[in-house]
């Protein structure tokens, strides 16, 4: 990935627009470069999927948008308004428009409060009347499929993982946000429950006109929900584009490697391409130039010397790579990248 640049931004109509976001943490071992000059935007009503392995900065990016982590530098615009300089009081008001749900649904809920109080916590803080709170609780619990009265008085520990995640979603919806940031919302859940939550997010998005940032490590999950996909590696952007194009003909070698690492029941040895060598480098001292070059099969001297900038490789598909991958031959013959079949490696 490696790279920086804002060629893929789509301008003023974006609901959320992030430019050159940098998040660094000081530790006793040095400065962790969690997110380094990442740019992206989300149009109203769109779902942006952010995908990558641990340490790629995808969760930090989500948290930085809500300013849950300190932003080192960069600009974040929400509805055209710069929010990186807002004070804590203004930010608190703004967070009603941007809500977040997390991976561990039970852990993100106060263990001592019943469901009916949990879901309207935000309204309570905003000073809504008792009556309004009660109406809102009924409304959001119904929206997430927990209309049954027996849920209202339960404590979080009595809920299953799927139910707890529904409560977390209901709580986010109670303040009627425009943007919902989901950080690995289904990775702690079983497949059958995961399907329920993914369908729910889709329904809510359609019915309430929500804009969603969906952060996950699971490529299949991201493909299902996303209108645009952002692939990250070690704090940098690798690739951005529509999921059909990115998955069928990835331009960045890291995207290709990620896709090839997903176990496939129908492939001969279970995988469609070669494995990626090596381990993730330390974010304390990331490689120079392209941060992916130490594991990249296409890396050369240029990759070490010069950081690649985000560029439009194919219409609507952007990557930060000095040596982007071509469209696989089978797809090129079939007339483009939008064919929804997996490509065998062309690298």
């Amino acid at each position, binding site marked *: 990935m490696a790279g920086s640049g804002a060629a893929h931004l789509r301008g003023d109509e974006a609901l959320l627009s992030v430019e050159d976001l940098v998040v660094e943490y000081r530790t006793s071992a040095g400065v962790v470069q969690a997110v380094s000059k990442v740019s992206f935007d989300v149009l109203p009503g769109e779902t942006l999927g952010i995908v990558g*392995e641990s340490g790629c900065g995808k969760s930090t990016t989500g948290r930085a948008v809500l300013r849950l982590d300190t932003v080192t530098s960069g600009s974040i615009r929400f509805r055209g308004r710069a929010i990186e300089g807002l004070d804590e009081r203004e930010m608190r008001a703004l967070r009603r428009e941007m809500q977040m749900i997390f991976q561990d649904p039970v852990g993100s809920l106060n263990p001592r409060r019943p469901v009916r109080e949990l879901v309207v916590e935000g309204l309570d803080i905003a000073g809504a009347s008792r009556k309004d709170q009660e109406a809102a609780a009924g409304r959001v619990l119904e929206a997430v499929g927990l209309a049954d009265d027996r849920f209202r008085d339960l404590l979080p520990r009595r809920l299953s993982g799927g139910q707890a995640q529904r409560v977390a979603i209901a709580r986010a919806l109670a303040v009627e946000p425009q943007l919902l940031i989901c950080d690995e919302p289904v990775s702690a859940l079983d*497949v059958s429950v995961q399907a329920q939550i*993914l369908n729910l997010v*889709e329904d809510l998005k359609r019915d309430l006109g929500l804009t969603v940032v969906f952060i996950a490590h699971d490529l299949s999950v991201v493909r299902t929900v996303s209108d645009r996909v952002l692939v990250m590696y070690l704090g940098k952007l690798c690739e951005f584009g529509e999921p059909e194009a990115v998955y069928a003909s990835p331009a960045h070698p890291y995207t290709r490697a*990620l896709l090839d690492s997903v176990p496939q029941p129908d492939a001969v040895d279970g995988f469609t391409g070669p494995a990626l060598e090596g381990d993730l480098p330390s974010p304390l001292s990331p490689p120079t130039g392209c941060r992916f070059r130490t594991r990249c099969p296409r890396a050369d001297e240029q990759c070490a010397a010069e950081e690649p900038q985000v560029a439009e490789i194919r219409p609507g598909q952007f990557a930060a790579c000095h040596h982007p991958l071509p469209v696989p031959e089978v797809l090129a013959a079939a007339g483009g990248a939008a064919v*929804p079949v997996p490509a065998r490696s062309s690298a």
Partner: protein
Amino acid sequence: MTEPLLVVSHLHMHIGTPRGAVRAVDDVSLAIEAGQALGVVGESGSGKSMLARAIMGLLPPRAARSGSIQFKGQDLMTLPVKEQRDLWGKQIGMVFQDPGRSLNPVVRVERQLTEGMRRHLGVGRSEARTRAVRLLDEVGVPDPEARLGNYPHQMSGGMRQRVMLAIALACEPDLLIADEPTTALDVTIQRQILDLLRRVQTSRGMAMMLISHDLSVVAGRTDRVAVMYAGQLAETGATREVFAAPRHRYTHALLDATPTLHQERHARLRVIEGSLPDPTAPPPGCRFSQRCTAPVEGCAEGPIPMESVGADHRVACLNPAGAPDLVVAGGSSDGR
């Protein structure tokens, strides 16, 4: 080999809780041939990890097991403790999900790796060290000599899992039990470890039991597969056949609920309505019957026998999903 390496018959493991006995493993029978890889898949609560623990004799508190577990003709459940100890680690190796917690954090890699060899094989210190270097090299640890002096916290998750595997392989076991070995790892690292497991398993001619919640993890790397639901086997058979043409309604629903890389944008996923039955008082018939989309008369009463539906394919279902061509018509075998 005529006799399978491991034969589990009518294995039960019940765990005492304040709410009653949880029937974690309830009448499971299966076999693994020498050199064969068996995948065990199921969601949480299916009993897959408890099955492994029952086989390994690592019982949780207040648990009891019955049935028989024959390993190379010896019954592991009646074998004296001393002889069991000779078996574990030497002929049966184990790898667990969390390499961070199953390695001793205050002991260097070298001692953890050589301990078993020196105890079980009686090799000397320098010979054990030589073998340890060779093992680390085999499992793909770069610079193995230097790694021997490391503590677990000095290594990445993928590296620790490689060391765990090296420890499990140290005494050249005939059977490796791997319980969710890659669940804590990222996809590119998971990929490396899965490739490694399969390579080591085939090159050593070792049998393997690979347990995972992820159907695709098991798919490309095992010869046979057993699908578990609520403590019982739902379906067993040749891995390719079970994935290409699942017959049990649960296996079918589970595959449909799993998103794939070729998923259409915003396509609705099929959900499995309802939840697991109460593990202390499961229904008498098929345990999936209340969530099943195609129950027939008799499903709720049981008992449901394991019936053969192919050369090596057995299923516990009174109304199995259609023959392969019907499955295609239903649109569920696309891309899998």
